[in-house]
């Protein structure tokens, strides 16, 4: 019995490693398999010529058919029509700022979607793929748009109709996004593995020898790995932590998937700060991944399944609010209603779920922050996470909370509302553009002379830490609730009866 489990685990881990390796080696596995098959069949595919669906070789340049092609059913096509191509979004788009061309502007991307919806461009056109995936989905254009174009929904719809470039790529993507992120054991393995890797000195060796440099994607992922704190094997979060003082609300906490492994202290800070502000905090152990990354990459069906599961789990808590400390996840929770609008069993429940969803900073501002007592001496600057500022339209609450911390000086950076280039898995899939966007961000961050950079989203923190490390800048990167927890004197120890016990 035990042996069986070990074998099953080993098979799973090896399988996952193979898929990841294929992904980072840009299809090594696929190529090898194809060659093998071709050799067996004595076929012609060994040459590696890419072929389109019609069997014709795909060249770099695609003919744009003038007419005659059947229009593709573009989800939410009517949303395209709300764009009046006024161009006011252009200067607010990070990729347009770097590349300077219409193809990589929100207006231009919508025009490309329009051409696809009208059948003038095929959705498997490599140019279409390139420009739609070069989008950060940061939604800064939505904030700039006077016509209320729902760009985020549009770009996700566009991604959902682009056929995968190969079955193996799709499988790898699904294994990571739909499988690994929703599996606690795999997440734990990743967490423990990463800690071991850092603490055994292996990371130092890898970085000093530059052994990964010939494999750019893997090297890239390695360089993004943040400094991991906490014990090797993380203690699970307590399922219930009681409010301190008078109880003001019962909240259920979405603790996140990979972020829970990489930023365990932020989750503990969140629970401590909520308890200090009179909230009973329930962290349902059965909860799963929110589905945001899947939805952003066009896999709406997986996202829907995740949403249904979380609705089932969170409803049972009977909580007044569902809280997230990750902007991307919170934004997704607020979209469950829209995501499941066509599901007769879940539509109403999803709508009710989204109404209860709050970002941690939003909820604290709504309840009214209890004045923190401990001084936190820092000169901090705040980066607006895109899915907070543009996705959830939350600008002032985090700033107000930070202003309430005694001893904290808050310095605004220029263009704090610009994306840092992290954008989900963008910093791995689009390394060059991501770096250019990060360059603009770091320039503004460093110009503030701050000693602390704050962002309310784990993805942004990974990217900002990487940017600071690369430039040799010593600055603390943290979530605003980490500072708030310090301001309440929380020491990270949580017990079930009364916040952090202190």
């Amino acid at each position, binding site marked *: 019995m035990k042996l069986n489990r070990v074998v099953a685990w080993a098979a799973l881990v090896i399988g996952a490693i193979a898929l990841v390796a294929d992904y980072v080696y840009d299809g090594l596995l696929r190529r090898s398999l194809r060659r093998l098959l071709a050799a067996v069949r004595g076929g012609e595919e060994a040459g590696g010529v890419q072929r389109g669906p019609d069997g014709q070789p795909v060249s770099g340049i695609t003919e744009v058919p003038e007419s005659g092609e059947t229009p593709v059913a573009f989800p939410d096509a009517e949303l395209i029509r709300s*764009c009046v191509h006024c161009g*006011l979004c252009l200067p607010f788009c990070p990729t347009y700022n770097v590349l300077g061309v219409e193809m990589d502007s929100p207006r231009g991307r919508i025009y490309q979607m329009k051409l696809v919806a009208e059948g003038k*461009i095929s959705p498997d056109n490599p140019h279409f793929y390139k420009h739609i995936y070069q989008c950060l989905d940061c939604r800064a254009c939505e904030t700039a748009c006077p*016509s209320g174009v729902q760009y985020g929904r549009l770009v996700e719809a566009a991604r959902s109709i682009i056929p995968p470039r190969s079955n193996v790529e799709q499988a790898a993507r699904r294994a990571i996004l739909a499988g690994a992120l929703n599996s606690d054991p795999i997440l734990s393995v990743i967490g423990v593995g990463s800690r071991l890797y850092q603490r055994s000195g292996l990371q130092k060796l890898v970085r000093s020898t530059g052994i990964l440099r010939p494999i750019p994607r893997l090297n890239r992922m390695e360089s993004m790995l943040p400094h991991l704190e906490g014990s090797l094997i993380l203690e699970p979060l307590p399922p219930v932590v009681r409010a301190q003082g008078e109880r003001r609300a019962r909240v259920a906490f979405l603790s996140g998937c990979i972020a829970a492994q990489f930023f365990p202290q932020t989750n503990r800070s969140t629970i401590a700060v909520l308890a200090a502000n009179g909230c009973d905090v329930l962290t349902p152990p059965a909860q799963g991944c929110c589905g945001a990354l899947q939805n952003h990459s066009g896999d709406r069906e997986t996202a829907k399944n995740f949403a249904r599961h979380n609705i089932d789990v969170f409803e049972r808590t009977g909580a007044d609010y569902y809280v997230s400390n990750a902007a991307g996840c919170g934004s997704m929770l607020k979209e469950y209603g829209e995501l499941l609008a066509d599901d007769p069993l879940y539509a109403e429940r999803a709508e009710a779920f989204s109404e209860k969803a709050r970002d941690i900073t939003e909820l604290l501002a709504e309840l009214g922050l209890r004045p923190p007592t401990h001084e936190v001496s820092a000169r901090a600057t705040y980066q607006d996470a895109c899915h907070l500022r543009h996705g959830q339209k939350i600008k002032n609450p985090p700033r107000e909370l930070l202003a309430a911390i005694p001893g904290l000086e808050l310095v605004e950076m220029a263009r704090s509302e610009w994306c840092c280039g992290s954008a989900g898995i963008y910093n791995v899939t689009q390394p060059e553009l991501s770096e250019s966007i990060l360059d603009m961000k770091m320039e503004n961050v460093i110009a503030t002379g701050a000693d602390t950079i704050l962002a309310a989203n784990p993805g942004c923190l990974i990217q900002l830490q990487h940017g600071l490390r690369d430039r040799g800048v010593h600055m603390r990167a943290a979530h605003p609730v980490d500072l708030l927890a310090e301001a309440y004197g929380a020491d990270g120890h949580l017990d079930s009866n009364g916040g952090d016990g202190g």
Partner: protein
Amino acid sequence: MQPSRFVQELIDIVGERNVLWDDYDLRLYEYDGSVDRALPQAVVLPESAEQVAEIVKLCNRASVPYTARGGGTGLSGGSIPVAGGVLITLVKMNRVLEVDLENLRAVVEPGLVNLQLSEAVAGNGLYYVPDPSSQKACTIGGNVGENSGGPHTLLYGVTTNHVLGVEVVMPDGELVEFGGKALDLPGYDLTGAFVGSEGTLGIATKITVRLVPLPEDVRTLLAVFNTVDDASATVSEVIGKGIIPAAIEMLDQMALQAVEASVHAGYPEDAAAVLLIEVDGLRDGLDEQAQAIRDIAEAHNARSLRIAKDAKERELLWSGRKGAFGAIGRISPEYYVVDGVVPRTKLPEVLEAIAEVGRQYDLRIANVFHAGDGNLHPLVLFDGAIPGELERTKEAGAEIMRICIRAGGVLSGEHGIGMEKAELMGELFSDHDMEVMLKLKAALDPEGLANPGKIFPTPGRCVEIPRRPLAGIGW
């Protein structure tokens, strides 16, 4: 596919990454903010004046037309390459080259976004006055081409009043300078002739502009009326009494409803019209001015009056006005902005005549405009997916322009003539007037390659629009 010899020569000038010639990419440059469409055959993104000059010389050698483009926010089709050819996109030339604080001047490149100039000098207590509603995205080069205005040009003047000099790549590819930092240069005022020439006399590569100290204080009023006549009468009387506010903007009911759906600026949706009035300058006397305007509005049956309490409320009130065009996207898939000027006193009858055009052509028309200088912006709402509706819309637009001309007005307040109103120029100007302009064009651009098909009706009498077969150069 190999680039043609011509494209290769463009690549030699600006580098591979700054030339677009693939069919897919060119489709993304067939539009701007207007309703017109035309495909260029190549797009170049030069990074210096010298590169622009080389491109223009190359176009001359190959007899290929060229059109300059900035942010692509224009509303009259000024940057639409109607005769094909090369689209010279100036967004990569976007630096502030010099800020001369003592003399209140700045020297900028044409691709700089209008608002970014004001942001760059705000720390010094200065700003750049012309503020088109698209100022977050339109470029100073485009503003020079179209002689753009904006709400705050009532008191301070439009772009031509703020441009002191331009460095221009002439149609023959030579780099020249008109004007400069000094106010009164001897000789012809070529800067004046160049501003508003819509890219037909050359391409600006460096622009010297006036900076103005930020006003010490400002009062912003929102006056709500039950009839358009009362609002119009208020405008006339305010100015008639010698009070020149920095801005007087009017929004009619349809515009109000769209704006409220978009920004929730607190505009009443059931009013017939609102006026957004702003006075600025030295703090002393501002309250008196605001009070005088209040009294006039009340005398004309204003149903309510509100003065912005703080900068936040002021910004909110303005955000409604600035986002008004785009907000129309919430009530209609497309819109066509008409730009005309009429004497202020004629506003009530002209607005009524415009409403009549709407009824006649069965189209909804919203009005958002600079009432202070009689600069109208009727927005004709349409749906391009309905066959014939775009054509009907354009006809209605032309009819509105004729109403403006009959009322003693002109064809454009700030958007330029471009493609959309070229055919109407003959109704505004006499043959002799037109001839002088065409002579200037012919003298400076004898080949007619600089942005053909704009401003003047086709075919022009002195200038033949080149629609030469381009096969010879291997497109």
